[in-house]
């Protein structure tokens, strides 16, 4: 079956988007014949220029440009690239894509995304409530609306504690000085409220899931983080088989009736052996290629569910334990003509792009 699949999250910095990992999963499956249409917000998103990644690339307006600008651009991309499946990979763009769900249906374009309600229920501010209902542990968390509440809240939790922005960022505060600095830094970017959270010492785990929207897990890859960046992002890890982690994922998927991709971050308290939910992201993680390595290619499983109607409620596909990944960074020489096409025209079609990353010498001589 041929699918023209559009995927975003092509930024490949030290905190990379999931796009390249998703694309690698899709390139490594053989069930579907997939043409990859990359969606980027900036010409500097490195995965645009990875030759084996995207067949076509289109720039999109940032969410701040407004919904109408976004929708207009998406309509153009659907028509030009004949997109028939969208797999958005960034939290901040999901509501924009959801705003076009009905239109996508009319156009014959498929998605498989969580609803707005699901996304809201797993927001940082609602996680405590969610954990209570799903009978999962959640670190003590206090929401503060201004700086006056900062120190008293931290004293209730004790040090170290985590300072979290409402959407992004988390910094460990070890004392009042680092607490104040972190709170000012995060609130200046994301505003209030801030969340102060009990520090759970232990091991970090990450789970990638594809779910059917009816409370069932289609596939699951659980990973122990083995290397972390300064921002706490996984730079290496290994798949594991843990009933405890599976049970956490099962309860969340069932309670939320989750549909589509999901990432669940879990800490295990090293003293009590208890699992604490840290975060849920409504997308695949950047390390999703590990799922392919562990024989549980989650993007493929998602497509199989959508296109081949894998029945809900069957035994989920679970990743093979003991598969390890290490991430590395790479400097890429890119063609200025490709960069120019993305930068000026906002799109790149590899069918018509030069075949190598070398500069076009004839053009150089002419100028």
């Amino acid at each position, binding site marked *: 079956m041929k699918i023209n699949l559009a995927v975003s999250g092509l930024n490949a910095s030290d905190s990379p988007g999931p796009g390249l990992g998703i694309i690698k999963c899709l390139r490594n499956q053989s069930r579907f014949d997939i043409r990859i249409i990359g969606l980027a917000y900036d010409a500097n998103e490195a995965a645009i220029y990875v030759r084996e990644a995207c067949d076509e690339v289109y720039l999109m307006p940032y969410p701040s440009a407004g919904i109408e600008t976004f929708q207009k651009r998406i309509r153009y991309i659907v028509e030009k690239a004949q997109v028939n499946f969208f797999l958005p990979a960034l939290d901040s763009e999901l509501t924009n894509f959801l705003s076009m769900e009905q239109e996508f249906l009319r156009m014959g374009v498929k998605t498989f995304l969580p609803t707005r309600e699901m996304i809201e229920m797993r927001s940082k501010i609602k996680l405590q409530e969610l954990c209570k209902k799903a009978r999962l542990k959640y670190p003590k968390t206090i929401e503060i609306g201004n700086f006056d509440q900062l120190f008293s809240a931290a004293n209730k939790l004790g040090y170290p504690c985590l300072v979290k922005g409402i959407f992004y960022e988390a910094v460990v505060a070890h004392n009042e000085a680092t607490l104040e600095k972190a709170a000012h830094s995060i609130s200046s970017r994301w505003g209030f409220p801030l969340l102060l959270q009990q520090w759970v010492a232990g*091991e970090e*785990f990450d789970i990638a899931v594809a779910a059917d929207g009816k409370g069932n897990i289609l596939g699951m890859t659980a*990973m*122990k983080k*083995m290397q972390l960046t300064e921002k706490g992002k996984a730079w290496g*890890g*290994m*798949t*594991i*088989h*843990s*009933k*405890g982690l599976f049970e956490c994922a099962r309860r969340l998927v069932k309670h939320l009736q989750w549909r589509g991709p999901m990432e669940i971050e879990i800490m*295990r308290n090293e003293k009590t*052996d208890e699992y604490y939910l840290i975060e849920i992201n409504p997308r695949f993680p950047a390390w999703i290629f590990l799922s392919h390595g562990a024989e549980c290619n989650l993007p493929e499983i998602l497509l199989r569910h959508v296109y081949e109607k894998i029945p809900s409620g069957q035994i989920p596909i679970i990743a093979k*334990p*003991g598969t390890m990944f290490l991430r590395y960074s790479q400097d890429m020489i890119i063609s200025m003509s490709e960069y120019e096409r993305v930068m000026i025209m906002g799109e790149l079609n590899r069918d018509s792009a030069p075949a190598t990353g070398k500069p076009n010498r004839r053009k150089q001589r002419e100028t």
Partner: protein
Amino acid sequence: MKKLSERFNSLDSGLIIDQMSGKFFSANAAGLLIFRGIIAGKKKQQLIDSLTREFDVDAKTAARDVEEFIVELQSFNLHEN
């Protein structure tokens, strides 16, 4: 509980991978022999016999090695997590 043989992947180099917790351990040749024996469900005396057969040690030393290894193994938390 998952079978120990499914939980652990022990490589010939002595690297032992706990596929439930994601932890790695390393053992020398004797340790690996004991470990694989335990995974295979051997009794303590069988482990001692294996050691004396494969290595140049007497039964007393082998018994001590097996005891020490088992004590160390307790720290691996051989339970479901």
